[in-house]
Every structure is written in structure tokens, then in C-alpha cells.
């Protein structure tokens, strides 16, 4: 048994050494002819091999689309099934989109979400992270609870929010949770999102949901940042007699300013792309039809774009969608560049 085993090993060894020898011979032969790159790949050839899967997918589904969407936005009467179009127009589609009343409304709705929910979320998130860092017992427990919104299906929880904010003045038999809380503190129930709602009541539900949904990520990132700060800074500040609030403004905030900055940029971009929360809370159309107040329009910019994609089979509408998407991109770009400019002066790396 043992003998057989060793013989087998020997055979394998001989085979391997012969294989290696053949390899060396081939290598010598090729290098004589100056063809060694066939066997020993240079870095760029290897890189192509490693990058092909990712880059080819990115080519088809990211780079080409960006280029193509720019082109489409200059076509008139573009038909996606036949792939033909009537002609070109330089700013015609942009003009149509910008003069569209719905688009102005969409920009207004989106900027409300950006301007209110982003600062509130960042501020509250920072407060929570500081508080979490200050306590020791139960920290893990609180951390898990605060993280829950990150791992939920946004459509599912949006539906729950819609249910929590239901109820109206005429029909007191079925109050939602929010209205129940209002009656407890002595206020009248409000129609939040049902028939008879006002613009701001519906918007505030969307804002509350955005804050609820966005907190998790911010808290975790801020907490990771705060925990990375060297304790010596705080000790030094304490010796110098700095108060708690002072050491927060002078140490904590500057030290985690890169994270605040990163969160600011990503969440502004994210807030500009709000879509599924409106779908979940309001409906697929993004409209509330109320008898007296007419229709309340809560479409965001992305909503506006998807409305056109949904009607893709009609000629020319894809061009409007592209134009709107490029306008959105322009807005995001301007905001990001602005923030980067401010960040250069304010952020300490």
C-alpha cells in the first residue's frame, strides 16, 4: 500500500517535471523568435482579459446609453421600433420639456424634497451618531434598530406609511396612526394623502418617509467616522477646559467633515432621483384627484421621465424623456460642482 503510494507520487513528480521541461523548451524557442508574449503575457494583455467582462457590460449598458441618449435628445419624431426619425433639432426637445407645466411642477417637487429632507436627515443622523458614540450599554441594540430601514423593501414600507397616514375629516371611523396621535394631543385629524388632501400634507408624508428611509445609512457612516477619531483630541480639549458643545464643533465636525461631505453629495444626488417612495405612498400616477382642490401633482423629475418611457411606442416621446434626463443630469452636475467648490474650502482631509 505504502510502496504503491510512493510509486504513484514518483510518477506524478516525473510527469510534472517533464511538463515543466517542455514548457521551458517552448519558452526558449519562442523567445528566440521574439514571440514570448504569447506565453508570458504583458500586463496590458492580462488587463484586457480581466477587464473584458466588466468593461463589455459597461460599454453596452452604461457608456453607449449615455452617448445615445444625448443623440436621441436631438431627434424629432424618433420611433424606437423602426429606429428612424424625421430630422434633427438642436434645442427643440429641451424647449418643449422646459416649457411643459408638468416639468416645472416636477422640478419644484423634487427641489422641495432635496432642500428639506437632505439637511434634516444629515442633522438628525449626526445627532444620533454622536449620541450613540457617547453611550456604551445597548449601543448594539440601538444600532440594529436604526439600521433596519436600510434592509427593507422601500415599496413595502411605503405602503405601510400610506396606511399609517390614512384617514380623513368626514370619516372618523377609521383613523390612521398619525391622525390618532394628532387627536391625542388635541388637534383635528388631517387628510394626509387621501381624497381631499392638500399639497403640503401629501408632501410632508413623502418627506417623513424620505427622512425615515435615509437615516440608516447616514448614522452608520457617521458613527464609523466618529469612532475613528483619536481620543487624544478630546482629552486635550478637556484639559484646556473646552465645553462639550465646543469640542463637538471644533473637533468632531471637522474630523468627520469628509464623511459629511460625502454623505451630502450622495444624498443630494439620491434625493434628486426620488421615485419609488412617491409610487409607494401616493400611487403609480403620482397624482391625487380631489373633488374640490382639483388634482395634486406630486411627480418628481424621474417620475416625469418614466411617464414618457411608459409611452415609448409613440413617436418622439423618447426624445423628450432624454432631454428631461439630461436636464436632470445638468442640475445634479451643477449641484455637485458647487458642493465640491464649497468642500475645497471647508473640508479638512
Amino acid at each position, binding site marked *: 500500500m505504502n510502496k504503491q503510494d510512493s510509486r504513484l507520487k514518483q510518477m506524478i513528480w516525473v510527469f510534472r517535471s517533464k511538463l515543466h521541461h517542455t514548457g521551458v523548451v517552448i519558452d526558449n524557442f519562442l523567445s528566440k523568435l521574439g514571440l514570448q508574449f504569447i506565453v508570458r503575457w504583458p500586463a496590458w494583455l492580462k488587463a484586457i482579459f480581466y477587464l473584458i467582462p466588466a468593461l463589455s457590460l459597461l460599454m453596452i449598458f452604461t457608456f453607449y446609453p*449615455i452617448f445615445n441618449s444625448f443623440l436621441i435628445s436631438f431627434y424629432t419624431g424618433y420611433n424606437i421600433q423602426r429606429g428612424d426619425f424625421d430630422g434633427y433639432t438642436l434645442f427643440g426637445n429641451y424647449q418643449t420639456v422646459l416649457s411643459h407645466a408638468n416639468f416645472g411642477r416636477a422640478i419644484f417637487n423634487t427641489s422641495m424634497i432635496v432642500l428639506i429632507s437632505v439637511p434634516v436627515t444629515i442633522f438628525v443622523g449626526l445627532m444620533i451618531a454622536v449620541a450613540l458614540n457617547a453611550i456604551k450599554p445597548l449601543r448594539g441594540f440601538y444600532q*440594529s434598530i436604526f439600521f433596519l430601514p436600510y434592509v427593507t423593501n422601500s415599496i413595502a414600507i411605503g405602503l405601510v406609511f400610506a396606511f399609517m397616514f390614512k384617514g380623513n375629516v368626514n370619516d372618523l371611523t377609521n383613523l390612521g396612526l398619525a391622525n390618532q396621535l394628532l387627536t391625542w394631543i388635541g388637534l383635528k385629524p388631517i387628510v394626509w394623502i387621501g381624497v381631499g388632501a392638500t399639497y403640503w400634507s401629501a408632501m410632508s408624508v413623502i418627506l417623513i418617509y424620505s427622512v425615515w428611509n435615509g437615516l440608516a445609512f447616514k448614522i452608520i457612516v457617521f458613527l464609523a467616522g466618529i469612532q475613528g477619531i483619536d481620543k487624544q483630541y478630546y482629552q486635550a480639549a478637556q484639559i484646556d477646559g473646552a465645553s462639550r458643545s465646543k469640542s463637538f464643533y471644533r473637533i468632531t465636525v471637522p474630523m468627520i467633515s469628509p464623511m459629511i461631505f460625502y454623505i451630502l453629495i450622495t444624498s443630494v444626488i439620491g434625493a434628486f432621483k426620488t421615485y419609488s417612495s412617491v409610487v409607494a405612498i401616493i400611487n*403609480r400616477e403620482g397624482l391625487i384627484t380631489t373633488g374640490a382642490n382639483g388634482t395634486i401633482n406630486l411627480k418628481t423629475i424621474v417620475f416625469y421621465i418614466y411617464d414618457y418611457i411608459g409611452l415609448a411606442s409613440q413617436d418622439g416621446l423618447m426624445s423628450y424623456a432624454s432631454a428631461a434626463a439630461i436636464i436632470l443630469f445638468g442640475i445634479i452636475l451643477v449641484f455637485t460642482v458647487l458642493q465640491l467648490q464649497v468642500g475645497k474650502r471647508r473640508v479638512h482631509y
Partner: protein
Amino acid sequence: MMKRITKEIKRLDLIATLIDIAYALIYMVVLGYFFYILVEPAVITDVVSAEYIFFGFIKVTSAQMNVMISLLVGYLLVFVPTAVKHIKRVADKETIELDPWDYRSQVLYAFMAFFTGNPASAIIRFITANKMMLIIQNYNLGKGFIEGFKAIGKFFVSLVNSTKAFFARRAEYKNNIQKFGKEKARQMKIDAEIERKGSLSQQDLERVGRNDLIMKTFGLVAMYTFLTFIAIFIFIPFYWMILTALKTHVELTTRLNPRFFIGLDEMQWVNFKVAFTRFSFWRYLGNTVTVGLISMVGTVTTTILAAFAFSRLDFKGREFIFSILLMTMMIPGELYTITNYITVRNLGWYDSFAALIFPFMTSVFYIFFLRQSFKQIPDSLYRAAQVDGCGDFKYLTRVMIPIARPTITTITILSAIGAWDAYIWPQLVAPSQKNWLISVALRSTSFVVGSGSDARPVYNIQLAATALVTVPLLIIFFSLKKYIIRGVGRSGTKG
């Protein structure tokens, strides 16, 4: 007072845990059986009052059935996580320190096991607790309690004494005012204080220390209150979802104010069964898992290969290509959704899984994220591997992937969460019902009674379906909490 856990205790713990798991499995089967025999109402708004007969002679009403199911669910909610925790602890190779808390929790588990009809596990846990007590010397439960009571007693005694002394001093001060006049009395008071507490500067120091302590306590109380409020704000949608899913339709439509708690016998578990069958949950789950798994495997593979090329291979234009990739992260996805929609239609993938999988087989953000952690692996390791005749691919699979495993796990989990959460793209390119993913199905299925303009939503069934969609992700989260939180935190700090 800490000691290493011994092998014997580990073994006993393992046996008890295995018994617990066996019980949990049996109870799960029983729970499944209960759900199987639950009678569905003919109209989804009705409340069923049926009678179930077990073994031919035990008669159970619907309310009793609800209580039984609630108790079983509660049992599983408590015992499955603890069993998993115990198994993890036993399987852990590192030595475990033992402290009085382990002893206390062991006793608690023993009581819990005893009261849930699991005497075998209870006895073993009592024995384990005793063994632990032997190891943790100078400690037993009774003594701990007595010491605690003594400390509390001492505190009260000192409180009473100091209050008494305070009043005595005040009475004396008033007495002195009458006897010697105000000026002298005050001077005498200060003298007495100095005699009692030390010099004036020392008093100042003590006062500062005391104020500090009070401020600290106030701060802690404020912080915990704040955190608890936010935690309630975060948690209430989940609670409200489960609570509403367990209520009856009658209660939701006729009751004036919603109740915040309901009795065990009123929990309508049948709502979940109705949601399950009406919603055809399995099909959408199957769709989501298929799409999610394939795109996850694809994403991880392409990401690892690309991140390796960007972090280890030296070729011309590496930084240039990478910075172009990073720039695309800023462009809103809608810009490419438009053309991708056309591309997918032209490729004939419209309304098929291919359209859901291929566009998401790679991600610039994950490449960036993984490249960061690949870059932290020292270059000398790469050189050493090259000297040993290890090729690039072998180096990647044998060295880099094992080292960067936490990051790769995070990427895997995040992409799975992404698949579960996907809504916009799936509803655009796969609108027919057989291809619905779970979010699309949830938003598109309507649970209504009546028809036409008279249609009213049945909220309890809808929220039961919502809970069915939410719970699997929560289970994944709680079992992989460490990786998710750490990974997400790191993604922000490196970005």
C-alpha cells in the same frame, strides 16, 4: 472574575442547544401544520369561526387556534435566535471568557426551557449553570442579591442621615442667628463647614466634581431618551405593519380609534395564509431569487476581476480608465435607462429575465469599493507569490480573495438587497405577471372587495403580504448584521 470556559461546559451547552433546536424544528412543523389546516374565509373580509378537531377528540375553536399559533410564533422568535447564538459560540474556535452574566443567563435559559415544556434542556442547563458557578469562585446568585440589597439599604440610610444632618445644621444656624446675630452666625456656619469638609478650595473642587457628575447623568438620561424616541419612530412602521396584518377587516373599517395592542386570541393568523395564496408569494419569491442569484454571481465575478486589474496590474491608461468609470457614478441612471430600454427591446429581451439580469451584472461602485480593499494588501505579498511561481490568477484566488473576503461578503449582501428592492427597471421591462419581481408584485397586486367604483382596499391582507415581503430581508439582516453594518460604514469612510 473571569475564567475560560471549559470543554465540559461547552459540551453540555451544545447538548442543551441541540435539544432546543430539535424542539424548535418540531414546533416549526407543528406551526406549518396549523397554517395548513387553517380554514380560509370564502370572502377575504369575513372572519372565520371554525372548529378544528385533533386526534378525533380534542376540539379547538378558532380563537384557541389563534392563541396556539401566537404562542408558537413567540416561542420560535425567542428560541431560534438564542439557539443560533449558542451554536455560534460553541463553534467559535477562540476561547470564551466566562463571567457572572453567563451564569445568570444560563439560569434564565433553564427557566425558559422549563416553562416551554422542555425539561431535558432545562435540567442540562441547570447542571451547566452549577458547573459555571463552581468555576466563577466566590459567586452565587443569592449572595449577589443580598449584596445588592445591602448596597441599596446603605444608600437609603446615608440619604436619611445626610437629610437629618442638613436639617440639624439649619436649625442650629437659625438658633445662632437669634443668639449671636446674623454676621456671626454666618461666620460660624462657614467655620463648621470648613471643619467638616476641608478648606474652601477643596470644597470648590468637590462642588465642581459633583456638578460634573450631575451634568453627566443628565446628559446620559437625555441621550437615552432621545435615542429611544428615534428608535420608536424607526420601529413603529414595522410594528404597525404586523399589528394591522393581524387585525380583522371589521375592526379596521368600523372601529373609531385604532388599538395599539390586541389579545393573542384576536390575532388573525389566517390573514397571512390568505395573502400567501392570493398573492402567489412563492412564484414571485422564486423569480426574485433566480434573478437576484444570477446577477449577484455575475456582479461578484466581474467586480473581482476588474478590481484586480485596477489594483494590481500595471498597464498604460489604468488611472485614466478608472477615473472615467468613477465619473459615470455621478450620472443619473435614468439617462441610461432610456437607451437600455430600447436596447433590450431590440435584443428581444423585453419581458424576460435576461433584461433584468444582464444590465446589473456589474457595478462601478462595487469595483471602486473592492479596489480600495485590494489596494491595502501589501505589494510584497504579490512579489513573493511571483517568486514562488504563482501566476496572477492563482494569486487572485488563493491570496487576494481570502484576504478581502469581508468586503466581498458585503458586496454580495448589498447586491442581494438591491435585487430584493428593485422596482423601477423590473416594472418597466418585465410587465407581465409571470415575470414580476417581489416589489412589482406587491405594488401591482390589489387586495380589494367590491368592484368598479365601489372597490375598497382590504388593508389587513395587503399589510400581511407586505410583512411577507419584509420579513425575509430582516432575517438575513439579523443573521449577517456584522458584515452589513461594518461594510456599509466602511464604504462611507473610504469614499
